[in-house]
């Protein structure tokens, strides 16, 4: 589904190379995890895939089902099925959470040539999905992420994912700032979405999320490259020994 080929990315504003040749392929139905030290370029990869400004691709590319992702506007990528659960979800004062989600959902449907969802159908759907994530009516009415706790923001990301039903889900450190209960809720939310037509790229710093969301493949990213790939046991290795050994192997 997602193919990343020799991706080189630098900052637009400065001469700083961040991704230095990322190769990665995530097939439909699979869950891949990316682990790596802080500053290795994980968030940058997720932003470049979802179309954030400020980066320049100097070499390589990325496709979704064969279509050039990097040529598309962020909203086109979303309509094509890319979803990024943000490491730091953005607060938008004045825009209600419901209005936001309904606008997003209908914009995507419109872009795909589908009918817009009626207000009643939307309400029914969101109530059902919110309930599973223990998101109450009050949180839905409040402005997007404003006054939400760290855990509420992350659950709200998963709610959006559940509503938008993307096919390529990228989760950037969705586990950070979550207590054990919230981690369970979030993982259940993710697992409920796992199916053959959908792929996940789970970026995390810690192995513990991967206890709940079982990956098929684990990649280690360091200094802008994937330096090692393996099965779930790779995550356990990182958990026990840290990144030092793996990075040392590379030298």
């Amino acid at each position, binding site marked *: 589904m997602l193919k990343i080929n020799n991706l080189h990315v630098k900052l637009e504003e400065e001469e700083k190379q961040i991704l230095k040749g990322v190769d990665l392929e995530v097939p439909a139905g699979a869950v891949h995890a990316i682990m790596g030290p802080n500053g290795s370029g994980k968030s940058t990869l997720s932003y470049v895939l979802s179309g954030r400004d400020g980066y320049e691709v100097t070499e390589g590319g990325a496709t979704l089902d064969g279509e050039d992702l990097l040529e598309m506007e962020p*909203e086109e990528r979303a309509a094509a099925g890319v979803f990024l659960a943000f490491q730091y979800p*953005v607060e938008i004062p004045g825009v209600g959470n419901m209005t936001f989600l309904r606008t997003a959902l209908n914009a995507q449907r419109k872009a795909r040539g589908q009918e817009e969802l009626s207000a009643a159908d939307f309400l029914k759907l969101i109530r059902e999905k919110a309930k599973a994530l223990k998101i109450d009516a009050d949180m839905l009415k409040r402005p997007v992420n404003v006054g939400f706790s760290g855990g509420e923001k992350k659950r709200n990301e998963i709610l959006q994912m559940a509503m938008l039903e993307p096919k390529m889900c990228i989760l950037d450190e969705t586990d950070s700032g979550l207590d054990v209960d919230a981690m369970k809720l979030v993982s259940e939310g993710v697992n409920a979405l796992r199916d053959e037509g959908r792929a996940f790229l789970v970026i995390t710093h810690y192995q513990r999320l991967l206890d709940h969301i079982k990956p098929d493949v684990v990649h280690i990213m360091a200094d802008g490259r994937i330096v090692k790939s393996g099965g779930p046991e790779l995550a356990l290795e990182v958990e026990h020994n840290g990144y030092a050994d793996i990075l040392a192997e590379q030298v």
Partner: protein
Amino acid sequence: MAVTNPKPDPLAARLAGLAMPDGGAWVQDARKGALDRLTVQGLPGRRDEYWQFTRPDSLNAPDPDAAGVFDAGGEAPVYGEIDRLKVVFVDGIFSAEESDPLALAGIEIERLAQAAASDIHWAQGLYGVLEERGQTPVARPFAALNTAFAGDGVVIRVTGKAAKPVNLIYRHENETSDALLHHVVKLEPGADLTLLENGPAAARFNKVMEVEVGDGAAFHHVRTQGRDHERQAVTHVFARLGAEAVFKSFTLTVNGLLTRNECVVELTGDDAVAHIAGAAMGDASACAFHHDDTVFVTHDAERCESRQVFKKVLRNGAVGTFQGKILVKQGAQKTDGYQKSQALLLDEDATFLAKPELEIYADDVICSHGSTSGAIDEEAMFYLRSRGVPEVLATDLLVLAFLADTIAEIEAPDIADDITSRLDAWLQRRRG
């Protein structure tokens, strides 16, 4: 010998086409008094500090520039869902045909011309009186001109709770109309009125409204100034508040070559509350847009609260200006004064100019003001787009979000919702 042309007198030129309307002695005295004030003041010039952000030339000119009539193309009318008493003016002239009968429980309402014809009238205590009070410390020549020459308008005395809102509707038909309207509103103690206004009114519009809010009375004012691009307007609200009186005024302005809205409020009774809010949205790509909010709030009693919330969304060369002053007089202890003016600049060609001022002569007061301008929050923009919301739609969502706390100043939920849906529909139509 060189012949020097005498310097043309702009005031004389401006007044040449105007005639003082007929009326009883009281109104004629008020009009002559206003003309005397105007003669002393002269028309505002480019060196006038109070006009530093806005050029008055087109308002000073003897004749208005032509302004095309906006084709609303079957849009739902503003306040369409609100049960209200409609009072219609076409190019500044009252239209009995299009208006509801001037009768409503809780109020007395009549045309200014009718009131002016009486020998004795309650409006005598207010017509030109609040306007004159508002002329110090800053001159407002267009208000004096209005008092001197306006022949139409309504006078409303509110004795109880008005059975429903009164809606002054200003239709614009004639592309070169030059309209003067003067309204007087008196709320007796404990009375309650919601006054709605909408419509472009004329090619050039000069309106004055004098409002006396008696002790414990409440006046709610909601105005929309739409949508003709080339129209020009200078408007003044002069309000005086008694003890525990409430005055809340909200204005939404969309389009308009030139708009100057002055609001002059005097809190003269203890524990009075005045909220003045404005939302303006302009795009100068097809036609210039210049919107000026000028506010002057005087605290002259104890424990009063005043709040100014003004927001502007500007693009493609649109200009927004704000001059807001809070004057706290000696003895006006426990004053709570607040002022906020902000602009959202949607591109680099838009301009916002602001002059917030505090002048305080009492020691036990809380006053604050803040003025900011900035672009769309890029983080929010990317977040919205990453969820599939196209950029233009995301911009509009953020515009509505930015304006939301001005609309929140409207107390009646049905009217606030009406304003929000109109704004939403206008944005939608613009998106095409």
